[in-house]
């Protein structure tokens, strides 16, 4: 299972804070983006950062592991 989480403006667009996707051996971050981005184009339009297991990831070809936690995040505005 892949856990996908959303916060702040992205969570508001998706109207959800968390989703679970079935894990498929060899699936990449790009696969997840393609699937969810088609369902939630507005939300993914404001995604500026992606973290896998709390580490920022820039390479969308990254191969995922079972139980990974993926966060799709808008530009930060804390402080």
């Amino acid at each position: 299972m892949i856990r996908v989480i959303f916060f702040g403006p992205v969570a508001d667009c998706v109207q959800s804070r968390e989703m679970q996707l079935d894990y498929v051996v060899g699936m990449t971050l790009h696969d997840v983006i393609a699937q969810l981005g088609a369902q939630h184009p507005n939300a993914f339009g404001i995604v500026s950062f992606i973290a896998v297991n709390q580490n920022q990831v820039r390479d969308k070809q990254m191969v995922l592991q079972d139980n990974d936690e993926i966060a799709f995040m808008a530009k930060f505005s804390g402080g």
Partner: protein
Amino acid sequence: MNAPVRIQQADFSQDEEIRALRSSSKRMGGIATFLGCARDFSEGRNVSEISFDAYGSMALAEMNKLRNEAIEKFGLLDARIVHRLGTVQCGENIVFIAAGAQHRAPALQACHWLIDELKQRVPIWKKETTPQGETWVTSHP
């Protein structure tokens, strides 16, 4: 004593943070702090309150990394970072940074660096409540 890096709903006391910071060394000659507060006016609109959402575990990890990097980069004796979550009323505290060093220049430089980096690297989002409704903030003013 409270941890030097925290995300919390509750307000904090500058005096208590400073006391905790300076208890780490008697060599501390300079302490620079930055306090961010909720303004009543932003981008031309009145703001009554601000609420924060965060990726809590990652935010805390990033803030701890920032503290360690600042201590290393500027030769600090100690540093503290506190960020509030939940809803903050206009005029209240949001974020507090403190950097202590033997001399003033590294303390002042580290404090400035820490708040700039925090805004770039820590997954926290701010929503302003105005008479026109609620808006997520996306700029780094």
